[in-house]
């Protein structure tokens, strides 16, 4: 087939994505250099880098960046480490495997707003929540999770959503592991721990890479969980970049500063993506 036809087939996707990327991004770049507050229309003079200065010196900036990274790394570590261990432990036939699989994956299908509301109210509420009831039954003071440990609470919610995904990917991957190799290792006197370390982990390298990549795409953009549960607070304790920018744009109506923040978020995502694609790219077949 001619090159021109193959190009033609690709064109709609490529052009639409280019437009989707370029138009909003160039608008963001333009807005970030002018004074643009929805409360003061008509005063849109060029201000250079002032919006960036405002955004970076905002008291919420440093907490937002570190919260974004802490959230990303903690959820990645929790889901990958727990995911690998749990999947290795349940990777044998047992009673009711099908039902367990279905129960395990369910949290992945719960929408983020519902996820946050269930945890905020029914699990973590300091008076009526299940956690409070458990700690009281054990004789401890109940903890007010959302105000005492806001970021930890968000991490728990997000991990709950993504751990099932990790487990299921790893379990699926383990099923293709070479059992003969494992048996041979056992014959040679390898312990379970050795097999896990030298056979299972290397076998999981590629699935781990895939899980890390997909989760990162979604974790850098966590928004609904924060929006619904803590509202970024108390103070900036659970504000991430996405929430800080939303706050600037739609609550303080400062489009200029929000755009500068948006560009910063793009930059951060690119830095993460750069390292990630280098680490993971090898493991993705194209």
């Amino acid at each position, binding site marked *: *087939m001619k090159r021109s036809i193959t190009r033609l087939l690709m064109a709609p996707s490529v052009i639409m994505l280019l437009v*989707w990327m370029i138009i909003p991004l160039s608008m963001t770049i333009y807005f970030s250099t002018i004074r643009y507050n929805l409360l003061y229309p008509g005063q849109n003079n060029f201000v250079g880098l002032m919006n960036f200065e405002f955004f970076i010196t905002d008291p919420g900036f440093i907490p937002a960046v570190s919260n974004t990274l802490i959230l990303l790394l903690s959820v990645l570590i929790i889901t990958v480490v727990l995911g690998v261990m*749990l999947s290795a*432990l349940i990777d044998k036939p047992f009673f009711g495997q099908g039902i367990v699989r279905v129960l395990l994956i369910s949290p992945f*299908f719960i929408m983020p707003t519902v996820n946050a*509301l269930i945890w905020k109210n029914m699990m973590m509420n300091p008076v*009526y929540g299940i956690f409070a*009831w458990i700690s009281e039954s054990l004789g401890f003071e109940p903890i007010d999770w959302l105000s005492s440990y806001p970021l930890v609470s968000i991490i728990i919610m997000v991990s709950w959503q993504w751990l099932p995904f990790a487990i299921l990917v790893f379990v699926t991957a383990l099923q293709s592991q070479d059992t003969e190799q494992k048996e041979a290792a056992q014959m040679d006197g390898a312990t379970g721990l050795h097999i896990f370390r030298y056979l299972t982990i290397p076998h999981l390298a590629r699935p781990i890479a895939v899980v890390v990549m997909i989760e990162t795409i979604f974790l850098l953009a966590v928004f609904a969980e924060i929006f619904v549960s803590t509202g970024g607070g108390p103070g900036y304790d659970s504000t991430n970049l996405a929430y800080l920018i939303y706050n600037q744009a739609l609550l303080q109506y400062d489009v200029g500063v929000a755009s500068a923040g948006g560009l910063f978020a793009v930059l951060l995502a690119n830095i993460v993506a750069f390292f990630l694609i280098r680490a993971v790219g090898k493991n993705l077949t194209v």
Partner: protein
Amino acid sequence: MTLNQQRKLKTILTGLFAWSVALVLFFPIFWMFITSFKTELQAISVPPSLFFEPTLDNFRIVQERSDYIHHAWNSVVTSFGSTIIALVIAIPAAYSMAFFPGKRTKDILLWMLSTKMLPAVGVLVPIYILCRDYGLLDSKTALVIIFTLMNLPIIVWMLFSYFKDLPKEILEAARMDGATPWDEVVKVVLPLSVGAISSTALLSIVLCWNEAFWSLNLTASDAAPLTAMIASYSSPEGLFWAKLSAASTLACAPIVIFGWFCQKQLVQGLTFGAVK
């Protein structure tokens, strides 16, 4: 203990362990479901009550107060609409990249995926302003367009990784028999990849159904899908857990049940076929 007994014991222990992990992870969903049948008083009783007389009142109130059917319809239209449009655009692209790869195919694919890495907040303001200027705020049209573009990279990539594994000989044979490119796609490629296309579609539907960033920021009431409807229950005034649970159960049930039936394909799909 004989070796056989040991093995049996191991199976039982594995089973017990797996079941307890699954039950712990599933518990919040179970609790939400149970609470939706309680009265408001039972919902906040301490210690939590497990046995009670179920009531359907909450579901009726949710429908009356926030018109569940209306929002569910919005969710259905936006997620199915955008998935169909995205498939129509993505299939030709994936086909041409898989069967006629050029020097830059790999770069184009990576670039597509990188647009997915662009955080939505980075373009929130311009999109919001564009929607406002074109009268698309709180409209299903805006959500369909955005959802389509949002999932297009993943859909192209997934279809590409399936198409790539189709045996090339079949296509060559079809061509020898005088099939036009159109015949080739419609009569050979598509029938062979029904499974792949449907699991891609499923994943896209799930992602759209649960999408919250754009639906929270761009809709108010007319076009608000279920994700946005639920957020309106987050108000701190009073504890209405039973109603909240009923609304949440209604919002999640369709997609969770849908997901149960196709979880295997979904995982395979979401990992770009890298895990089989």
